[in-house]
């Protein structure tokens, strides 16, 4: 038995490893929610003979051990870092681009959905036209369409520019607003987040300006706003999926009309039955997902009433990209209704008719629109 010291060392190290692993299960307390992953973590499953026999107990137990493993965030970071070293261009559904850019790797699961959604909106617009309601559609580009040069080469990602042309050709009773040139001309400004899949409020500002031309309102100039950073340590959704050490933070910039011209707002959140006089959920800046400062994240429906002297009312059907844009629009309508079809199951047409709304705006990210299963609920 030569090499005795080596053998003893290996045995001791491995035993230490096993002991540490075992103790780590006991010592660290169970967490209920992971801010980093934005999901609830599995809790200790209850035992029953029935669950044992149908294998659900063992599966739940294994998930529980997996989810509650100590320093989970550290391990995920280590793995992502290793993948970057191995020159893999994507990890966990996120492209890791150059210059610290992350891009969402969205797989279009059903290529027919784009046509389905186009026809749903088309039908809606026909109905709207008959009822003297104007319909506008603002497709929002994803980060990769504007910052393509930082994407890994040859990625087979969904071509949003072609999709936009395809959509605007097929939709003829609805105004489709193209903000591509606006985004490109301002791309040297901070218009998209690097660690989150959304655009920034500054980015949506330029869309807001373009919308004014089509929706009959005069947009305010940038000098009419107070703008300031309310956070300089924001890590967004994409970072959460593929965290890396030494990744620079994003900052969150907020725009508010100067007090001398700012109207009064009353925001009513249906889901929580709460009201607010501000367009922003300031408390959410302390949460992990700081983007929820904008309209409090996902709501089935919320209503914004202002004291602006106009009879213009707006109904917005949207995904989360609208959240940064809506605070700008709120300055031009007496009432704005904001609906997210993922959570809203009532009839949109009935609601619009009942409340005498005369303008409808669809705001969707192009990639998400091409894969959205909820629009057809409209």
């Amino acid at each position, binding site marked *: 038995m030569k090499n005795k010291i*080596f053998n003893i060392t290996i045995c001791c190290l491995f035993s230490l490893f*096993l002991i540490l*692993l075992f103790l780590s*299960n006991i010592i660290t307390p169970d967490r209920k929610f992971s801010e980093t992953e934005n999901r609830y973590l599995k809790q200790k499953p209850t035992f029953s003979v029935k669950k044992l026999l*149908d294998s659900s107990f063992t599966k739940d137990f294994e998930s529980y051990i997996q989810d509650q493993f100590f320093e989970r965030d550290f391990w995920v970071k280590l793995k992502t870092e290793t993948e970057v070293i191995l020159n893999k261009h*994507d990890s966990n559904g996120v492209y890791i681009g150059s210059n610290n850019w992350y891009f969402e790797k969205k797989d279009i699961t059903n290529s027919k959905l784009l046509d389905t959604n186009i026809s749903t909106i088309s039908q809606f617009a026909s109905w709207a036209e008959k009822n003297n309601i104007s319909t506008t559609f603002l497709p929002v580009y994803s980060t990769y369409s504007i910052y393509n040069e930082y994407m890994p*080469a040859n990625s*087979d990602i969904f071509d949003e520019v072609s999709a936009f042309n395809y959509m605007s050709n097929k939709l003829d009773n609805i105004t489709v607003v193209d903000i591509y040139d606006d985004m490109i001309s301002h791309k040297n400004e901070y218009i998209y987040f690097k660690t989150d899949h959304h655009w920034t409020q500054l980015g949506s500002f330029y869309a807001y300006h373009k919308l004014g031309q089509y929706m009959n309102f005069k947009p305010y100039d940038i000098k009419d706003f107070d703008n300031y950073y309310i956070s300089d340590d924001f890590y967004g959704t994409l970072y959460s999926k593929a965290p890396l050490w030494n990744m620079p933070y994003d900052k969150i910039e907020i725009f508010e009309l100067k007090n001398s011209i700012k109207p009064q707002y009353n925001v009513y959140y249906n889901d929580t039955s709460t009201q607010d006089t501000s367009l922003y959920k300031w408390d959410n800046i302390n949460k992990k997902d700081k983007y929820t400062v904008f309209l409090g994240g996902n709501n089935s429906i919320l209503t914004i009433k202002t004291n602006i002297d106009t009879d213009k009312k707006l109904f917005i059907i949207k995904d989360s990209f609208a959240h940064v844009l809506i605070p700008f629009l709120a300055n031009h309508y007496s009432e704005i209704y904001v609906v997210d079809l993922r959570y809203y199951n009532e009839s949109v047409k009935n609601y619009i008719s009942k409340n005498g709304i005369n303008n409808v705006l669809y705001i969707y990210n192009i990639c998400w629109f091409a894969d959205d299963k909820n629009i057809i609920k409209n």
Partner: protein
Amino acid sequence: MVFSSLTFLSIFLPVTLAIYYIVPNTIKNLILFIASLLFYAWGEPVYVIIMIFSTIVDFIHGKVIAYYYNNPNKKRLFLMSSIIINLSLLGFFKYSDFLIQNINDIFDLSIKKLNLSLPIGISFYTFQTMSYTIDVYREKCKPQKNIINFGCYVAMFPQLIAGPIVRYITIAEELNNRKENIYKFSEGIVIFIKGLSKKVLLANNIGMLWDTIYSKPIQNLSTLSAWLGIIAFTFQIYFDFSGYSDMAIGLGKMFGFDFPNNFNFPYMSQSVSEFWRRWHITLSTWFREYVYIPLGGNKVSKIKKIYNILIVWTLTGIWHGASWNFAIWGLYFGIILIIEKFILNKYLEKLSSVIKWIYTMLLIIIGWVLFSFENLNNGIIFLGKLFYINTVEFLDNNSLYLLSSYKIILIILILSSTNLFSNILHYIFVKSKLIHNIIIITLCISALVLNIAYIVDASYNPFLYFRF
């Protein structure tokens, strides 16, 4: 339970090892047996009964066959009984739906399938218990007197789920009388870590590439995509399976057992015959000992030999899965082996190593196409893609992207498939034992840390050979 899971590594293994080494020698086998039953029941709470049944049945058969040592007819009777019971179990759970499907197809019926789920490891443990009764019959070993010891052999968790297929005679002595020591334990640790890394860091990783390509509609695949895909599968199945075998062997050593090696750098082979001496060695050994030799082995006429080889290889294929593509895969290799044995070998000898290697790898990769496509139609279309038949593009964006993303991983895989690293380590060992030891310790620690990282973030941790 899977070795590459946190439940196994952080709970089952530490607790089992601790209890095993605390208890006195006399009940070590009992502890191992109970732990193995718990391990198996964890994944198969109901079917654990079948494994216990198989254990009891063959334990009794072993004793009875030995009892009738001078009564050839009775001896034979009980041997047949054991084989029939084991094959019936295997046949019923694994092949009944396959049989029903074929009957439906041939006679145009619609008999309802049983839709039984396959008890994990049944292909392995039935083969192991049969090796016992057959070797007792052949008087190669004495029957095991202690049912706990025998149960320990059958259920032993290291090799129960995915091999190696350990013949009873291999560990009969160690079962009754073994001495664990630091040397064997540390050897086991290093082999275990090597196997874990192969599975988690290599196989799971490259498996994602295969999965990406396999999930695309087959008509749209470019030639480069098809090649990337099948090369990914070629690596995945090797590192997955050999990784699991290594873990089994490593764990066996930790408990004082020496299991036989199951893989010997198969992708370095220079002929298909050589490949099958390096791939899943315990399976080929089993089929040779218990099917080929009883059929006559090398002592029969050329025609009969060819016939026997074809039978054995078709059976080998079918063992891998209850589907015709597996039978064809087995037969495919049977035919190549016959051609090599009787015709090609003398020509192959004269060729350079590189050409022999290319010839071998090409045939193996084509084999994997047959293996991985249950739908033979798709398999053939895929084969066409490899050779730019009926293919729209040779390259496309997607395949270039994947190649770029995986190029470093692929290089690591290619090097790891050869004995380059083990040769380097051996060279270092000869020059300086100390440096060698430091390197091994560093590698082990880094590997463990990385493995935990990948296991914790596992969105993808399949195990290919679980269909057995």
